[in-house]
Protein backbone atom coordinates (compact mmCIF):
# COMPACT_ATOMS: atom_id res chain seq x y z
CA UNK A 1 0.00 0.00 0.00
CA UNK A 2 2.72 2.47 0.98
CA UNK A 3 6.02 3.10 -0.76
CA UNK A 4 9.28 2.29 0.98
CA UNK A 5 9.94 5.99 1.44
CA UNK A 6 6.61 6.49 3.19
CA UNK A 7 7.28 3.56 5.50
CA UNK A 8 10.82 4.72 6.19
CA UNK A 9 9.68 8.21 7.22
CA UNK A 10 6.73 6.80 9.13
CA UNK A 11 9.01 4.54 11.13
CA UNK A 12 11.74 7.18 11.58
CA UNK A 13 10.21 10.59 11.11
CA UNK A 14 12.47 13.63 11.02
CA UNK A 15 11.78 16.92 12.80
CA UNK A 16 9.34 15.54 15.33
CA UNK A 17 8.48 17.76 18.25
CA UNK A 18 7.76 21.35 19.03
CA UNK A 19 9.74 24.59 19.04
CA UNK A 20 9.03 26.36 22.28
CA UNK A 21 9.83 29.84 20.96
CA UNK A 22 8.44 29.28 17.48
CA UNK A 23 7.99 32.27 15.18
CA UNK A 24 5.04 30.68 13.44
CA UNK A 25 2.71 27.87 14.31
CA UNK A 26 0.17 26.28 12.01
CA UNK A 27 -2.44 23.79 13.04
CA UNK A 28 -4.62 22.18 10.40
CA UNK A 29 -7.06 19.30 10.33
CA UNK A 30 -9.53 18.21 12.92
CA UNK A 31 -9.31 15.46 15.49
CA UNK A 32 -12.86 14.43 14.64
CA UNK A 33 -11.65 13.60 11.14
CA UNK A 34 -8.73 11.70 12.54
CA UNK A 35 -5.93 13.91 11.38
CA UNK A 36 -4.33 16.97 12.89
CA UNK A 37 -0.99 18.43 11.92
CA UNK A 38 0.81 21.11 13.86
CA UNK A 39 3.84 22.81 12.32
CA UNK A 40 6.33 24.97 14.26
CA UNK A 41 8.66 27.32 12.39
CA UNK A 42 11.76 29.21 13.44
CA UNK A 43 12.40 31.98 10.92
CA UNK A 44 15.39 34.23 10.38
CA UNK A 45 15.60 36.80 7.58
CA UNK A 46 12.57 35.34 5.85
CA UNK A 47 14.20 31.95 5.79
CA UNK A 48 13.05 28.83 7.65
CA UNK A 49 15.95 27.90 9.88
CA UNK A 50 14.15 25.25 11.90
CA UNK A 51 10.89 23.38 11.61
CA UNK A 52 9.18 20.74 13.71
CA UNK A 53 5.87 18.96 13.60
CA UNK A 54 3.37 17.14 15.74
CA UNK A 55 0.84 14.93 14.02
CA UNK A 56 -2.15 12.91 15.04
CA UNK A 57 -2.91 10.69 12.09
CA UNK A 58 -2.15 7.71 9.92
CA UNK A 59 1.17 6.56 8.56
CA UNK A 60 0.74 8.77 5.49
CA UNK A 61 0.03 11.80 7.64
CA UNK A 62 3.16 11.20 9.71
CA UNK A 63 5.34 10.53 6.66
CA UNK A 64 4.09 13.61 4.81
CA UNK A 65 4.67 15.73 7.90
CA UNK A 66 8.23 14.52 8.05
CA UNK A 67 8.74 15.00 4.33
CA UNK A 68 7.32 18.49 4.13
CA UNK A 69 9.39 19.68 7.07
CA UNK A 70 12.52 18.40 5.40
CA UNK A 71 11.52 20.02 2.15
CA UNK A 72 10.97 23.50 3.56
CA UNK A 73 13.89 23.59 5.96
CA UNK A 74 16.39 26.17 4.73
CA UNK A 75 13.99 27.58 2.18
CA UNK A 76 12.82 31.20 2.04
CA UNK A 77 9.20 31.79 2.90
CA UNK A 78 8.35 32.39 -0.75
CA UNK A 79 10.00 29.15 -1.75
CA UNK A 80 8.28 27.26 1.05
CA UNK A 81 4.90 28.60 0.03
CA UNK A 82 5.44 27.06 -3.39
CA UNK A 83 5.71 23.52 -2.02
CA UNK A 84 2.52 21.77 -3.02
CA UNK A 85 0.93 18.57 -1.79
CA UNK A 86 1.82 17.06 -5.16
CA UNK A 87 5.49 17.81 -4.55
CA UNK A 88 5.27 16.12 -1.17
CA UNK A 89 3.48 13.07 -2.54
CA UNK A 90 6.00 12.81 -5.37
CA UNK A 91 8.93 13.06 -3.01
CA UNK A 92 7.40 10.13 -1.15
CA UNK A 93 7.20 8.06 -4.31
CA UNK A 94 3.42 8.45 -4.39
CA UNK A 95 0.53 7.92 -1.99
CA UNK A 96 -2.54 5.70 -2.23
CA UNK A 97 -5.43 7.72 -3.68
CA UNK A 98 -7.45 7.63 -0.45
CA UNK A 99 -4.44 9.13 1.37
CA UNK A 100 -3.84 12.14 -0.84
CA UNK A 101 -5.66 14.36 1.62
CA UNK A 102 -2.89 13.65 4.12
CA UNK A 103 -0.42 15.37 1.80
CA UNK A 104 -2.82 18.27 1.41
CA UNK A 105 -2.63 18.62 5.15
CA UNK A 106 1.15 18.95 4.90
CA UNK A 107 0.92 21.74 2.34
CA UNK A 108 -1.72 23.53 4.38
CA UNK A 109 0.22 23.09 7.60
CA UNK A 110 3.23 24.92 6.25
CA UNK A 111 1.07 27.66 4.77
CA UNK A 112 -0.78 28.10 8.07
CA UNK A 113 2.46 28.36 10.00
CA UNK A 114 3.88 30.95 7.61
CA UNK A 115 0.65 32.91 7.71
CA UNK A 116 0.76 32.82 11.49
CA UNK A 117 4.30 34.19 11.36
CA UNK A 118 3.34 36.91 8.91
CA UNK A 119 0.31 37.86 10.97
CA UNK A 120 2.36 38.06 14.14
CA UNK A 121 5.00 40.13 12.43
CA UNK A 122 2.31 42.43 11.13
CA UNK A 123 1.10 42.86 14.71
CA UNK A 124 4.70 43.44 15.72
CA UNK A 125 5.84 41.71 18.88
CA UNK A 126 2.50 41.66 20.58
CA UNK A 127 2.10 37.91 20.91
CA UNK A 128 5.48 36.44 21.51
CA UNK A 129 4.48 33.15 23.04
CA UNK A 130 1.09 32.78 21.49
CA UNK A 131 1.55 29.17 20.40
CA UNK A 132 -0.57 27.89 23.25
CA UNK A 133 -3.67 29.29 21.57
CA UNK A 134 -4.03 26.21 19.33
CA UNK A 135 -2.97 23.51 21.67
CA UNK A 136 -5.97 21.53 22.79
CA UNK A 137 -4.12 18.85 24.63
Amino acid sequence: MYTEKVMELFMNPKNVGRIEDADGIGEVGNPVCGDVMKIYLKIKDDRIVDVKFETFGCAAAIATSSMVTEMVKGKTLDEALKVTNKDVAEALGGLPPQKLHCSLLAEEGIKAAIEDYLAKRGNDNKKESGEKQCAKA
Partner: protein
Amino acid sequence: MSRFVYLDHSATTPVDQRVIDAMMPFFAPDFGNPNSLHAWGRKARQAVDKARNQVAQLINAYPAEIIFTGGGSEADNLAIKGVAFAKKDKGRHIITSAIEHHAVLDTCNWLAKEGFDITVLPVDEYGMIRPDELERAIRPDTILVSIHFANNEIGTIEPIEKIGNICRSHGVLFHSDAVQAAGHIPIDVKNLPVDLMTMAAHKMYGPKGVGALYIKKGVKVIPLIHGGGQERGLRSGTENTAGIVGFGEAAALAAERLAKGEMEKETRLRDKLIDGVLKNIPDVILTGHRLERLPFHASFCFRYIEGESMLLRLDALGIGASSGSACTSGSLEPSHVLLAIGLPHEVAHGSLRLTLGKDTSDEDIDYVLENLPKVVESLRAMSPYGKRG
Protein backbone atom coordinates in the same frame (compact mmCIF):
# COMPACT_ATOMS: atom_id res chain seq x y z
CA MET B 1 12.12 -8.49 14.35
CA SER B 2 12.28 -11.00 17.06
CA ARG B 3 8.91 -12.70 16.73
CA PHE B 4 5.83 -13.12 14.57
CA VAL B 5 2.66 -12.76 16.57
CA TYR B 6 -0.57 -12.92 14.61
CA LEU B 7 -3.32 -11.35 16.68
CA ASP B 8 -5.93 -10.79 14.03
CA HIS B 9 -7.94 -14.01 14.28
CA SER B 10 -11.19 -12.08 14.00
CA ALA B 11 -10.14 -11.13 10.48
CA THR B 12 -9.17 -14.64 9.50
CA THR B 13 -7.35 -17.67 10.85
CA PRO B 14 -4.62 -19.91 9.46
CA VAL B 15 -5.97 -23.13 8.01
CA ASP B 16 -5.18 -26.00 10.38
CA GLN B 17 -2.77 -28.54 8.91
CA ARG B 18 -5.31 -31.33 9.51
CA VAL B 19 -7.86 -29.31 7.59
CA ILE B 20 -5.44 -28.89 4.70
CA ASP B 21 -4.72 -32.61 4.76
CA ALA B 22 -8.43 -33.38 4.64
CA MET B 23 -9.01 -31.04 1.72
CA MET B 24 -6.07 -32.05 -0.45
CA PRO B 25 -7.47 -35.20 -2.08
CA PHE B 26 -10.55 -33.29 -3.24
CA PHE B 27 -8.51 -31.07 -5.53
CA ALA B 28 -7.07 -34.23 -7.07
CA PRO B 29 -7.41 -37.20 -7.40
CA ASP B 30 -10.90 -37.09 -5.81
CA PHE B 31 -11.94 -34.04 -7.76
CA GLY B 32 -15.37 -35.31 -8.85
CA ASN B 33 -18.50 -33.21 -9.01
CA PRO B 34 -20.80 -34.44 -6.21
CA ASN B 35 -23.69 -34.32 -8.67
CA SER B 36 -22.10 -36.88 -10.99
CA LEU B 37 -23.29 -40.45 -10.70
CA HIS B 38 -19.97 -42.12 -11.46
CA ALA B 39 -17.30 -43.16 -8.97
CA TRP B 40 -15.62 -39.73 -8.94
CA GLY B 41 -18.93 -38.07 -8.20
CA ARG B 42 -19.99 -40.53 -5.52
CA LYS B 43 -16.77 -40.05 -3.63
CA ALA B 44 -17.27 -36.31 -3.66
CA ARG B 45 -20.89 -36.66 -2.55
CA GLN B 46 -19.87 -38.79 0.41
CA ALA B 47 -17.31 -36.23 1.44
CA VAL B 48 -19.84 -33.40 1.31
CA ASP B 49 -22.30 -35.44 3.34
CA LYS B 50 -19.69 -36.13 5.96
CA ALA B 51 -18.76 -32.46 6.19
CA ARG B 52 -22.41 -31.49 6.55
CA ASN B 53 -22.62 -33.84 9.51
CA GLN B 54 -19.53 -32.36 11.08
CA VAL B 55 -20.75 -28.79 10.79
CA ALA B 56 -24.20 -29.78 12.01
CA GLN B 57 -22.67 -31.46 15.04
CA LEU B 58 -20.71 -28.38 16.02
CA ILE B 59 -23.99 -26.56 16.69
CA ASN B 60 -26.18 -29.58 17.40
CA ALA B 61 -28.26 -29.15 14.24
CA TYR B 62 -29.68 -31.75 11.87
CA PRO B 63 -27.45 -32.14 8.79
CA ALA B 64 -30.37 -31.18 6.52
CA GLU B 65 -30.47 -27.84 8.33
CA ILE B 66 -27.00 -26.87 7.08
CA ILE B 67 -26.72 -25.07 3.73
CA PHE B 68 -23.18 -24.52 2.49
CA THR B 69 -22.51 -21.14 0.91
CA GLY B 70 -19.60 -19.24 -0.59
CA GLY B 71 -18.80 -17.52 2.70
CA GLY B 72 -20.22 -15.77 5.72
CA SER B 73 -21.38 -12.70 3.84
CA GLU B 74 -23.27 -14.83 1.37
CA ALA B 75 -24.95 -16.71 4.20
CA ASP B 76 -25.99 -13.41 5.82
CA ASN B 77 -27.40 -12.20 2.51
CA LEU B 78 -29.18 -15.50 1.93
CA ALA B 79 -30.75 -15.42 5.37
CA ILE B 80 -31.98 -11.86 5.23
CA LYS B 81 -32.95 -11.50 1.58
CA GLY B 82 -34.16 -15.08 1.61
CA VAL B 83 -36.62 -14.47 4.43
CA ALA B 84 -37.50 -11.02 3.10
CA PHE B 85 -38.52 -12.36 -0.31
CA ALA B 86 -40.20 -15.41 1.15
CA LYS B 87 -42.31 -13.37 3.57
CA LYS B 88 -42.82 -10.12 1.75
CA ASP B 89 -46.53 -10.72 1.32
CA LYS B 90 -46.86 -11.17 5.07
CA GLY B 91 -44.89 -8.10 6.07
CA ARG B 92 -41.89 -6.01 5.18
CA HIS B 93 -40.47 -4.91 8.50
CA ILE B 94 -37.04 -6.14 9.57
CA ILE B 95 -35.21 -5.32 12.79
CA THR B 96 -31.46 -5.35 13.16
CA SER B 97 -28.86 -3.63 15.32
CA ALA B 98 -26.56 -0.69 14.73
CA ILE B 99 -23.41 -2.76 15.21
CA GLU B 100 -24.02 -5.63 12.81
CA HIS B 101 -21.45 -6.56 10.20
CA HIS B 102 -21.87 -4.78 6.86
CA ALA B 103 -23.02 -8.07 5.36
CA VAL B 104 -26.16 -7.62 7.45
CA LEU B 105 -26.44 -3.82 7.50
CA ASP B 106 -25.82 -3.25 3.80
CA THR B 107 -28.21 -6.05 2.93
CA CYS B 108 -30.87 -4.33 5.04
CA ASN B 109 -30.05 -1.00 3.41
CA TRP B 110 -30.57 -2.52 0.00
CA LEU B 111 -33.85 -4.06 1.07
CA ALA B 112 -34.91 -0.63 2.33
CA LYS B 113 -34.51 0.65 -1.22
CA GLU B 114 -36.59 -2.26 -2.46
CA GLY B 115 -39.56 -1.37 -0.31
CA PHE B 116 -38.73 -2.97 3.03
CA ASP B 117 -38.81 -1.09 6.29
CA ILE B 118 -35.76 -1.46 8.51
CA THR B 119 -35.47 -0.64 12.19
CA VAL B 120 -31.89 -0.35 13.40
CA LEU B 121 -31.76 -0.82 17.15
CA PRO B 122 -29.22 1.15 19.16
CA VAL B 123 -26.92 -0.63 21.58
CA ASP B 124 -25.57 0.40 24.96
CA GLU B 125 -22.00 1.52 25.60
CA TYR B 126 -20.86 -2.10 25.71
CA GLY B 127 -22.53 -3.00 22.43
CA MET B 128 -25.39 -4.83 24.09
CA ILE B 129 -28.85 -5.02 22.60
CA ARG B 130 -31.54 -4.24 25.16
CA PRO B 131 -34.21 -6.93 24.89
CA ASP B 132 -36.97 -4.58 26.04
CA GLU B 133 -36.12 -2.17 23.25
CA LEU B 134 -36.25 -5.03 20.78
CA GLU B 135 -39.63 -6.08 22.07
CA ARG B 136 -40.98 -2.53 21.69
CA ALA B 137 -39.72 -2.40 18.10
CA ILE B 138 -41.60 -5.51 16.98
CA ARG B 139 -44.70 -4.73 14.93
CA PRO B 140 -47.44 -6.83 13.36
CA ASP B 141 -45.60 -6.64 10.02
CA THR B 142 -42.20 -7.59 11.43
CA ILE B 143 -40.92 -10.67 9.59
CA LEU B 144 -37.36 -10.95 10.75
CA VAL B 145 -34.96 -9.93 13.50
CA SER B 146 -31.25 -10.16 12.67
CA ILE B 147 -28.90 -9.69 15.62
CA HIS B 148 -25.40 -11.07 15.66
CA PHE B 149 -24.20 -13.60 18.18
CA ALA B 150 -21.04 -11.65 18.89
CA ASN B 151 -19.50 -8.53 17.46
CA ASN B 152 -16.31 -8.70 15.42
CA GLU B 153 -14.91 -5.33 16.44
CA ILE B 154 -15.59 -5.19 20.14
CA GLY B 155 -16.15 -8.85 20.98
CA THR B 156 -19.42 -8.38 22.86
CA ILE B 157 -21.67 -11.44 23.04
CA GLU B 158 -25.36 -10.58 22.73
CA PRO B 159 -28.12 -12.04 24.94
CA ILE B 160 -29.17 -14.42 22.16
CA GLU B 161 -31.49 -16.55 24.21
CA LYS B 162 -33.50 -13.57 25.46
CA ILE B 163 -33.63 -12.05 21.99
CA GLY B 164 -34.74 -15.34 20.47
CA ASN B 165 -37.43 -15.87 23.08
CA ILE B 166 -38.88 -12.45 22.38
CA CYS B 167 -38.92 -13.24 18.65
CA ARG B 168 -40.57 -16.60 19.27
CA SER B 169 -43.22 -15.12 21.49
CA HIS B 170 -44.12 -12.69 18.69
CA GLY B 171 -43.90 -15.28 15.92
CA VAL B 172 -41.02 -13.44 14.24
CA LEU B 173 -38.09 -15.28 12.64
CA PHE B 174 -34.71 -14.73 14.25
CA HIS B 175 -31.45 -14.78 12.34
CA SER B 176 -28.11 -14.52 14.10
CA ASP B 177 -24.75 -13.90 12.44
CA ALA B 178 -22.51 -16.23 14.42
CA VAL B 179 -19.44 -15.81 12.22
CA GLN B 180 -17.31 -14.70 15.17
CA ALA B 181 -18.87 -17.00 17.71
CA ALA B 182 -19.24 -20.37 15.99
CA GLY B 183 -16.47 -22.76 16.85
CA HIS B 184 -15.28 -20.50 19.65
CA ILE B 185 -18.09 -20.67 22.16
CA PRO B 186 -20.58 -23.51 22.62
CA ILE B 187 -23.73 -23.11 20.53
CA ASP B 188 -26.61 -25.56 20.65
CA VAL B 189 -29.37 -24.65 18.24
CA LYS B 190 -31.69 -27.30 19.66
CA ASN B 191 -31.68 -25.36 22.89
CA LEU B 192 -31.56 -21.87 21.48
CA PRO B 193 -34.49 -20.01 19.93
CA VAL B 194 -32.63 -19.26 16.67
CA ASP B 195 -34.16 -19.86 13.23
CA LEU B 196 -31.24 -19.01 10.98
CA MET B 197 -27.58 -18.73 11.85
CA THR B 198 -24.52 -17.76 9.82
CA MET B 199 -21.08 -19.37 10.08
CA ALA B 200 -17.81 -19.00 8.15
CA ALA B 201 -15.10 -21.64 7.94
CA HIS B 202 -12.18 -19.23 7.79
CA LYS B 203 -12.87 -17.85 11.24
CA MET B 204 -12.33 -21.30 12.75
CA TYR B 205 -9.16 -22.50 11.04
CA GLY B 206 -10.95 -23.59 7.89
CA PRO B 207 -10.61 -22.22 4.34
CA LYS B 208 -11.91 -18.90 3.07
CA GLY B 209 -14.75 -18.88 0.56
CA VAL B 210 -16.99 -21.32 2.36
CA GLY B 211 -19.68 -20.56 4.87
CA ALA B 212 -22.87 -22.12 6.06
CA LEU B 213 -26.34 -21.04 6.94
CA TYR B 214 -28.21 -23.01 9.54
CA ILE B 215 -31.89 -22.96 8.57
CA LYS B 216 -34.19 -24.50 11.11
CA LYS B 217 -36.44 -27.20 9.72
CA GLY B 218 -39.60 -25.66 8.33
CA VAL B 219 -38.22 -22.15 7.81
CA LYS B 220 -38.69 -21.04 4.22
CA VAL B 221 -36.19 -18.87 2.38
CA ILE B 222 -35.90 -17.83 -1.27
CA PRO B 223 -32.50 -18.73 -2.70
CA LEU B 224 -30.00 -16.00 -3.45
CA ILE B 225 -28.27 -18.07 -6.12
CA HIS B 226 -30.63 -19.89 -8.46
CA GLY B 227 -29.58 -22.72 -10.70
CA GLY B 228 -28.89 -26.42 -10.64
CA GLY B 229 -30.66 -26.93 -7.33
CA GLN B 230 -27.75 -27.97 -5.13
CA GLU B 231 -28.05 -27.60 -1.35
CA ARG B 232 -31.75 -28.43 -1.37
CA GLY B 233 -32.27 -25.79 -4.01
CA LEU B 234 -31.17 -23.08 -1.61
CA ARG B 235 -27.67 -22.55 -2.95
CA SER B 236 -27.12 -23.62 -6.51
CA GLY B 237 -23.70 -24.14 -8.02
CA THR B 238 -21.26 -27.01 -8.10
CA GLU B 239 -20.34 -27.66 -4.48
CA ASN B 240 -16.96 -26.41 -3.37
CA THR B 241 -16.07 -29.94 -2.33
CA ALA B 242 -12.61 -29.32 -0.99
CA GLY B 243 -13.72 -26.19 0.82
CA ILE B 244 -16.72 -27.92 2.32
CA VAL B 245 -14.59 -30.86 3.44
CA GLY B 246 -12.23 -28.34 5.01
CA PHE B 247 -15.10 -26.64 6.80
CA GLY B 248 -16.28 -30.01 8.09
CA GLU B 249 -12.88 -30.88 9.43
CA ALA B 250 -12.46 -27.42 10.94
CA ALA B 251 -15.82 -27.74 12.67
CA ALA B 252 -14.91 -31.15 14.07
CA LEU B 253 -11.62 -29.82 15.38
CA ALA B 254 -13.33 -26.78 16.88
CA ALA B 255 -15.80 -29.00 18.70
CA GLU B 256 -12.90 -31.05 20.01
CA ARG B 257 -11.04 -27.98 21.22
CA LEU B 258 -14.12 -26.60 22.94
CA ALA B 259 -14.59 -29.91 24.73
CA LYS B 260 -10.99 -29.75 25.86
CA GLY B 261 -11.28 -26.33 27.50
CA GLU B 262 -10.14 -24.02 24.70
CA MET B 263 -12.38 -21.22 25.98
CA GLU B 264 -10.80 -21.21 29.40
CA LYS B 265 -7.33 -21.25 27.90
CA GLU B 266 -8.05 -18.36 25.57
CA THR B 267 -9.90 -16.40 28.23
CA ARG B 268 -6.89 -16.53 30.53
CA LEU B 269 -4.55 -15.19 27.85
CA ARG B 270 -7.08 -12.58 26.75
CA ASP B 271 -7.44 -11.34 30.30
CA LYS B 272 -3.71 -11.22 30.74
CA LEU B 273 -3.55 -9.06 27.63
CA ILE B 274 -6.44 -6.81 28.62
CA ASP B 275 -5.23 -6.36 32.18
CA GLY B 276 -1.67 -5.77 31.04
CA VAL B 277 -2.69 -3.10 28.58
CA LEU B 278 -5.03 -1.32 30.97
CA LYS B 279 -2.42 -1.40 33.69
CA ASN B 280 0.62 -0.36 31.70
CA ILE B 281 -0.76 2.20 29.28
CA PRO B 282 -2.48 5.39 30.38
CA ASP B 283 -5.48 6.91 28.59
CA VAL B 284 -6.77 3.71 27.13
CA ILE B 285 -10.23 2.21 27.28
CA LEU B 286 -11.43 -1.31 26.67
CA THR B 287 -14.16 -1.39 24.03
CA GLY B 288 -16.99 -3.89 24.34
CA HIS B 289 -18.17 -5.75 27.39
CA ARG B 290 -15.60 -6.78 29.99
CA LEU B 291 -17.18 -10.18 30.71
CA GLU B 292 -19.72 -10.96 28.02
CA ARG B 293 -17.08 -11.07 25.33
CA LEU B 294 -15.50 -13.57 22.97
CA PRO B 295 -12.78 -15.51 24.78
CA PHE B 296 -10.17 -14.59 22.19
CA HIS B 297 -11.08 -10.94 21.75
CA ALA B 298 -9.41 -7.81 23.13
CA SER B 299 -10.14 -4.35 21.76
CA PHE B 300 -9.15 -0.91 22.89
CA CYS B 301 -9.11 2.76 22.07
CA PHE B 302 -5.92 4.64 22.78
CA ARG B 303 -6.39 8.35 23.12
CA TYR B 304 -4.35 10.93 21.18
CA ILE B 305 -3.16 8.53 18.51
CA GLU B 306 -4.53 6.92 15.42
CA GLY B 307 -5.16 3.22 14.74
CA GLU B 308 -3.49 2.74 11.40
CA SER B 309 -0.19 4.14 12.56
CA MET B 310 -0.38 1.89 15.63
CA LEU B 311 -0.98 -1.21 13.63
CA LEU B 312 1.72 -0.44 11.09
CA ARG B 313 4.21 0.14 13.91
CA LEU B 314 3.12 -3.16 15.42
CA ASP B 315 3.44 -4.81 12.02
CA ALA B 316 7.03 -3.66 11.84
CA LEU B 317 7.52 -5.54 15.11
CA GLY B 318 5.95 -8.68 13.67
CA ILE B 319 2.60 -8.21 15.37
CA GLY B 320 -0.56 -8.49 13.25
CA ALA B 321 -3.46 -6.37 14.53
CA SER B 322 -6.38 -4.41 13.17
CA SER B 323 -8.18 -1.14 13.73
CA GLY B 324 -11.54 0.40 13.02
CA SER B 325 -10.09 3.87 12.53
CA ALA B 326 -11.27 5.89 9.54
CA CYS B 327 -7.77 5.91 8.15
CA THR B 328 -7.54 2.12 7.86
CA SER B 329 -10.77 1.95 5.94
CA GLY B 330 -9.96 4.75 3.56
CA SER B 331 -13.32 6.27 4.41
CA LEU B 332 -13.83 9.44 6.38
CA GLU B 333 -15.74 7.75 9.18
CA PRO B 334 -14.38 5.46 11.84
CA SER B 335 -16.14 2.13 12.26
CA HIS B 336 -19.90 2.34 12.69
CA VAL B 337 -19.56 -0.01 15.65
CA LEU B 338 -17.31 2.32 17.62
CA LEU B 339 -19.57 5.27 16.94
CA ALA B 340 -22.67 3.26 17.86
CA ILE B 341 -21.30 2.47 21.30
CA GLY B 342 -20.98 6.20 21.81
CA LEU B 343 -17.28 6.84 21.35
CA PRO B 344 -16.39 10.32 20.10
CA HIS B 345 -14.75 10.32 16.67
CA GLU B 346 -11.33 11.28 17.99
CA VAL B 347 -11.35 8.37 20.42
CA ALA B 348 -12.64 5.90 17.85
CA HIS B 349 -9.72 6.84 15.62
CA GLY B 350 -7.41 5.28 18.15
CA SER B 351 -8.96 1.83 18.06
CA LEU B 352 -6.88 -1.32 18.08
CA ARG B 353 -8.14 -4.90 18.01
CA LEU B 354 -6.03 -7.83 19.16
CA THR B 355 -7.68 -11.21 18.63
CA LEU B 356 -6.00 -14.33 19.89
CA GLY B 357 -5.95 -17.78 18.38
CA LYS B 358 -5.64 -21.38 19.42
CA ASP B 359 -1.87 -21.23 19.06
CA THR B 360 -1.32 -17.93 20.84
CA SER B 361 1.08 -18.41 23.72
CA ASP B 362 1.98 -16.64 26.93
CA GLU B 363 5.19 -15.56 25.23
CA ASP B 364 3.20 -13.97 22.43
CA ILE B 365 1.20 -11.94 24.92
CA ASP B 366 4.36 -11.00 26.80
CA TYR B 367 5.87 -9.79 23.55
CA VAL B 368 2.86 -7.59 22.85
CA LEU B 369 2.78 -6.26 26.41
CA GLU B 370 6.43 -5.39 26.08
CA ASN B 371 6.13 -3.63 22.74
CA LEU B 372 2.69 -2.06 22.60
CA PRO B 373 3.41 0.50 25.36
CA LYS B 374 6.50 1.65 23.45
CA VAL B 375 4.56 2.01 20.23
CA VAL B 376 1.84 3.99 21.95
CA GLU B 377 4.34 6.15 23.71
CA SER B 378 6.35 6.95 20.63
CA LEU B 379 3.26 7.85 18.62
CA ARG B 380 1.95 9.97 21.43
CA ALA B 381 5.27 11.77 21.54
CA MET B 382 4.50 12.89 17.99
CA SER B 383 0.94 13.81 18.67
CA PRO B 384 -0.14 17.39 19.32
CA TYR B 385 -2.47 15.92 21.96
CA GLY B 386 -0.13 13.46 23.53
CA LYS B 387 0.69 14.00 27.17
CA ARG B 388 4.34 14.51 27.56
CA GLY B 389 6.28 13.58 30.67
